[in-house]
């Protein structure tokens, strides 16, 4: 047993950490968030040149053959700076669906561009009535001629505004909440009948509501097996949860450490705040929760790489629950211990807290996953 990073992973970690240090001072991030696109093309180019976009793809697909541990290493570092470039949406989500289900022709057409950064992907899975259930799908794809006709609406699609292709889950058979009968399609966001409404999210990223009105799809738009899309979607979502949890762990580290530093600088009642035992204990609790999150992140990530599917799934539920719960505990207390300053946009803590809140709302919140874990 060993929890050490390999030499390559160590280098990857250092490289992402350096990128974050160089490009993600709060002021610079605030500027990016305020820009129209919400992230930097230059940063995206840098990320592509550093090879990170190819990390989770197999060598046969033109990538570096990394697994969830490598993604964890990168996402944890990105979480320390709350990186805005769409690594998560394009590579972990969109790319995750493609690498699992795409046929040779689709891979050849798309993956080189995804890996060199000239293409970006998005994954459209959420629907209004579904809350957090991936299998609750009312968007339909009806077979017509050689292809399909897509109708319906998807919510909160990350990075759709800049995506060149969107992977969409749609019902091709079965009832609204059946796991079978869901298929995935590769959709051009510029196609006739696709309408995007773009907006910023609380954490400064970008998302869209997308409606599909009789969108004509070719036969080769189908990604993976007809009616068999749920397994791919679920596996991709699990990878998404691992990646979000890793990002959260990076953000949590910043939150508890910033709080420890601030309370030692800030003086009230002729003492640094850190002299007060009640605050010391609170910070110890924040630290404890952070370490527990990190442990469960390692556990769930390693079980996903090495364990059987059922065990991995249960670990993912446990992880998303704890990250949601601890994220809010640490976030709320980081703000509280920073006092009024924690309530402003001028310090990092509020921004990190917002990101953790959004992470809790994605792919099922703490309650949702606790119930799945207990079931």
């Amino acid at each position, binding site marked *: 047993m060993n929890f050490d990073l390999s030499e390559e992973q160590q280098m990857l970690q250092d490289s992402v950490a350096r990128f974050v240090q160089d490009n993600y001072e709060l002021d610079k991030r605030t500027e990016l968030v305020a820009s129209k696109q919400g992230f930097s093309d230059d940063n995206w180019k840098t990320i592509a040149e550093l090879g990170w976009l190819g990390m989770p793809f197999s060598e046969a697909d033109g990538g570096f053959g990394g697994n969830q541990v490598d993604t964890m290493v990168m996402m944890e570092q990105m979480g320390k700076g709350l990186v805005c470039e769409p690594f998560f949406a394009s590579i972990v989500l969109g790319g995750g669906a493609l690498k699992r289900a795409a046929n040779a022709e689709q891979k050849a057409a798309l993956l080189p561009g995804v890996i060199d950064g000239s293409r970006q992907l998005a994954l459209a899975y959420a629907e209004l009535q579904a809350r957090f259930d991936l299998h609750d799908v009312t968007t339909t794809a009806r077979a017509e001629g050689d292809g399909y006709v897509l109708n319906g609406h998807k*919510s909160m699609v990350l990075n759709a505004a800049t995506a060149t292709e969107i992977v969409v889950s749609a019902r091709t058979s079965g009832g609204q909440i059946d796991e079978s009968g869901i298929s995935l399609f590769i959709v051009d966001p510029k196609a006739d009948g696709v309408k995007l409404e773009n907006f910023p999210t609380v954490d400064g990223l970008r998302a869209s509501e997308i409606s599909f009105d009789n969108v004509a799809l070719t036969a080769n738009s189908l990604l993976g097996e007809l009616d068999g899309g749920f397994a791919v979607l679920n596996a991709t979502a699990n990878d998404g949860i691992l990646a979000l949890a890793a990002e959260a762990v990076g953000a949590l580290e910043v939150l508890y450490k910033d709080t420890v530093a601030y309370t030692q600088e800030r003086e009230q009642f002729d003492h640094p705040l850190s002299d007060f035992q009640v605050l010391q204990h609170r910070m110890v609790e924040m630290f404890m929760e952070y370490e527990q999150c990190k442990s469960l992140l390692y556990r769930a990530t390693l079980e996903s790489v090495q364990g059987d599917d059922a065990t991995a799934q249960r670990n993912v539920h446990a992880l998303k629950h704890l990250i949601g719960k601890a994220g809010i505990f640490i976030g709320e207390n980081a*703000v509280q211990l920073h006092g009024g300053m924690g309530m402003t946009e001028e310090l990092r803590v509020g921004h990190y807290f917002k990101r953790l*809140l959004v992470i809790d*709302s994605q792919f099922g*919140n703490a309650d949702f996953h606790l119930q799945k874990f207990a079931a």
Partner: protein
Amino acid sequence: MDIELSNEDLEFRNEVRAFFEENAYKNGEDFNKWRMDWFAKAREKGGWDVPKWPKEFGGPGWTPTQHYIWEQETATANLPWDLPFGLGMLAPVLMAHGSKEQQDRFLPDIRDRKVNWCQGYSEPGAGSDLAGLKTKAELSADGTHYVVNGTKIWTTMAHIADWIFCLTRTDDSGIKQQGITFLLFPMKQEGIEVKPIITLGGSHSVNTVFLTDVKVPVENRIGEEGQGWTYAKGLLQHERTGLAGISRSLVALEKLKEQAASVPRGNATLMDDPAFRGKIAELEVDLWATEYTELRSLASAAAGAAPGPESSILKLKGTEIQQRIQKLTVEAGGIYSASWGAKPAGPAFAKNGMGGYMSSRAYTIYGGASEVQKDVIAKNVLQIKRSSK
């Protein structure tokens, strides 16, 4: 023990309800005119425009039970907006410590909602430790005015305020609670700069106020020089009891239940989700207890007794409950709570959920951070003595 409202109280409640109904805002009405008319009519009712003012200053002279009924009814009625600073915070200080001239000069404009006030208390270096404030007020050689220099922070509505009541330091030779002087001065004058602070909810209500050589005539000083802390302390107590917001939380909780019942969850709604339902129930239990804590506090006040130990926990419990309601609203909104600005889909209440929740994090910071409140309770209520070892 008896919790029934008397016939007089029931009659009063009907009267309040009828008044709110008769004077409710009607669509299309000029908003400002309605607001000013509302206060004028409330005044004719016998001081209903200033419910908390004592009778000798034109207030209604209600019993605590009547105040409680008023609070309950206002939580659901749509009252015209009002700022608490002049009416609820400065006015009691003026009444207790201001001169007759000062009362005559300032109270009528406060009552008529003609002058907006802001509160110049906190400073960058003096938050929880308010008595550590450093904004300096120096008396001029001829003794006619003070010259004020310093920085105030978290000043709510300073950007629209006409006047400020401000704690300043006139003496730093003794312990820090001494040498604080309570001054009033206009905001629109040379030497005052207001800089907005944008908070996590994305809104602008608090500011930093820079004071550079601001001249304040001595007649704008409340009470004695150096006694400002004594006056301000009473004011903070006022502020804190007002922050519990129990009636508003009772209404907000019912709204939250309705909202959750509109969110689909499988074949049922979020209100049928055992985890969410459990959290709502836990919140409701706490709220029921807190409601009675407030009633016990009111009852002892009605009997003319000093506030009992139970009243000290109201701000702590009340603000925590408000935060939990906001948090559950965010949870109820699910993925849609993450959107910011344009909201093309999802339940309407999710639109402001996250902003409301982020703003609510300040409730346990302002008016005395919860940790400091607990210190005060340990010392004053539990009377725990610190050993000097």
